């Protein structure tokens, strides 16, 4: 039996899509652990059928029929052996575009029509075995987001299969850290709004983020939200956030910014009084359920609580504005204020017809903060009495702030 080596997975797919190269993954057919080691490959872990090339250190896996091959009953005697064919190995992969191989002489082996699906721009499952891993629902949504700008969409049969998985309640069985990992990656990648859309299309959003799912169908005041629907507003805001920054922390804050509107009493629609406060509790539920890291949860909470105030920042009195800066811990964490501002800007622009509106509030607060931080605290504290040092600093800041605000507002032509 001769040993054959094939390039597989993402490397082949990205080459066919004309995308920049990533890590190369190789599959070895007709070999076994002993033969690999004889040729100098290093086994990655005890009982793992994966080997590293002695020079390039790229990963070479024995052709196998299971994604995860355990040491278990008989080692990987059957699932990863010299008798497993390339087609069997490719069969266990999730999507047809990920199940294409290239031989060492450049020939493409494509038993599941991955190239046809690349041409048709379709994300399609390889076989019903797709359903064995409920986590794939999230991964397909992530791929849909990644390739959205190339025009890819999920095949209807695949969406139906994903829906079946969701209806079986299997999304609830997923380990929360794993779920969060997919959400965080999607928030940090292209088109995060497409990730949310695909999850909604297969009913997975209701399972994973019901707080966000609930926003669809909830109307807002058309005066401020020409798009009306809160879910749509969230998607538009997410699109704007993606344009403003690659930072997943900002994008996540945008995603869960308005969750409070999902529980407003219908009698009050389209107004949503105090949706900020209600939203904080809902965000806390999400954070607990998904083990959201502190950095993400904290910014999301700040945006939720203060975004409305931020939009009206020019109307705030100095004392109120100073309180806002302190709530943001603006003096000690200016970089977080920047993230806060980006999320607020995304929220302001995430409205039908208002995508290109200016958000002068951003510069306004940034300038104020910059000038305020130039206050020489060292000299000030020397003048203060120890028992009212804090109030003294506050007062000094307040009077400086009033000065700055007066100056800014008087030079503002729109005032």
């Amino acid at each position: 039996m001769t040993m054959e080596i094939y390039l597989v997975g993402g490397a082949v797919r990205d080459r066919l899509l004309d995308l920049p190269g990533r890590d190369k993954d190789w599959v070895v057919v007709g070999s076994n652990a002993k033969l690999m080691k004889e040729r100098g490959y290093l086994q990655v872990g005890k009982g793992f059928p994966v080997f590293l090339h002695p020079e390039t250190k790229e990963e070479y896996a024995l052709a196998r029929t299971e994604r995860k091959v355990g040491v278990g009953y008989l080692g990987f005697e059957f699932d990863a052996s010299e008798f497993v064919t390339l087609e069997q190995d490719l069969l266990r992969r999730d999507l047809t575009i990920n199940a294409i191989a290239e031989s060492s002489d450049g020939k493409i082996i494509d038993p599941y029509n991955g190239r046809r699906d690349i041409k048709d721009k379709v994300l399609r499952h390889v076989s019903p075995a797709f359903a064995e891993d409920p986590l794939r629902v999230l991964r397909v949504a992530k791929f849909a987001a990644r390739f959205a700008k190339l025009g890819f969409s999920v095949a209807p049969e695949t969406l139906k299969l994903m829906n079946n998985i969701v209806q079986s309640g299997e999304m609830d069985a997923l380990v929360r850290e794993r779920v969060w990992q997919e959400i965080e990656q999607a928030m940090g990648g292209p088109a995060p709004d497409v990730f949310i859309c695909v999850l909604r299309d297969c009913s997975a959003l209701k399972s994973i983020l019901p707080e966000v799912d609930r926003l669809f169908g909830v109307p807002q005041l058309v005066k401020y939200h020409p798009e009306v629907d809160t879910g749509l507003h969230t998607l538009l805001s997410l699109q704007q956030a993606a344009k403003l920054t690659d930072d997943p922390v900002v994008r996540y804050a945008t995603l869960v910014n308005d969750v409070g509107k999902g529980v407003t009493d219908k009698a009050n629609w389209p107004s949503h009084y105090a949706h900020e406060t209600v939203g904080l509790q809902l965000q806390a539920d999400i954070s607990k359920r998904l083990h959201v890291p502190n950095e993400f949860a904290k910014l999301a909470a700040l945006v939720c609580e203060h975004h409305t105030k931020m939009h009206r920042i020019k109307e705030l009195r100095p004392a109120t504005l100073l309180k806002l800066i302190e709530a943001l811990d603006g003096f000690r964490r200016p970089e977080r204020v920047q993230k806060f501002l980006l999320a607020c800007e995304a929220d302001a622009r995430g409205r039908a017809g208002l995508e290109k509106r200016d958000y002068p509030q951003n510069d306004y607060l940034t300038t104020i903060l910059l000038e305020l931080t130039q206050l020489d605290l060292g000299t000030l504290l020397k003048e203060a009495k120890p028992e009212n040092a804090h109030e003294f600093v506050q007062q000094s800041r307040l009077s400086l702030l009033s000065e700055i605000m007066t100056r800014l507002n008087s030079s503002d032509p729109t005032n």
Partner: protein
Amino acid sequence: MSTYVVGDLQGCYKPLKKLLRKVKFSESKDKLWCVGDLVNRGPNSLETLRFLHDIAGSIEIVLGNHDLHFIAIHEGCAPAGSKDTLDDLLNARDCQHLSDWLRTQPLAHYESLDTKSGVKDFLMVHAGVAPHWTLQKTLDLSAEVQHSLQDAQYKAFLRHMYGNTPTRWHNQLEGLDRLRVITNYLTRIRFCDEIGTMQLTVKEGLASAPHGFKPWFEYETMTPKTTILFGHWAALEGYTGKKYIHALDTGYVWGRELTLMRLEDQQLYSISN
């Protein structure tokens, strides 16, 4: 030297002995594989189990749903039902010994044998496997259940193995749910859908397939190619339509036949009730 597999015995000791005599079974030279459901519903559960235990060196068995049910009743983890005929066994002084022995048995047996048509891989389970399980995976998952029957929490498993949900296998299952699902495929499955969702309430034959469901063996794609031996489904009357899949339960305890097959040449022997 021959290897034989026999269908569900369900406490029917006399026909088993007759069949073994018919093929001149030799404890020193031959092997007997049992597809499980050794006890219950038939008249002689105690004698059947004692006999098999006595020739333990010459047999390979896999546990069936009735075997697990017996162990659960004996361990006080489940009540006996009105149709159970396990009293002689449960009241015997060697019941604990027999139950403990049974508790160490696997739910899947694999062996490679020399047959008239070359070396073949054989897998024996009581009822069936999930559509996309490979041979390796079947053995690994069966071993999970086998181990849980012997570890400190085995009674928790016995208490929680009953039930029809979750209805299908996926690789994120954990804990008792995971063990219950594996046990259901190996010891109770008949009909399922393309992604393995089990339909555990229909017991009749192929003609009564619920809409969207087929016999589990219509979906199996086991790698490497394996001959599967199973029992449990008497309504099949020994027929699967698949060359590599053999249904051994022919319903002796329901008034029909007990079937024995020699693996080396697929020769069949049977005895009517």
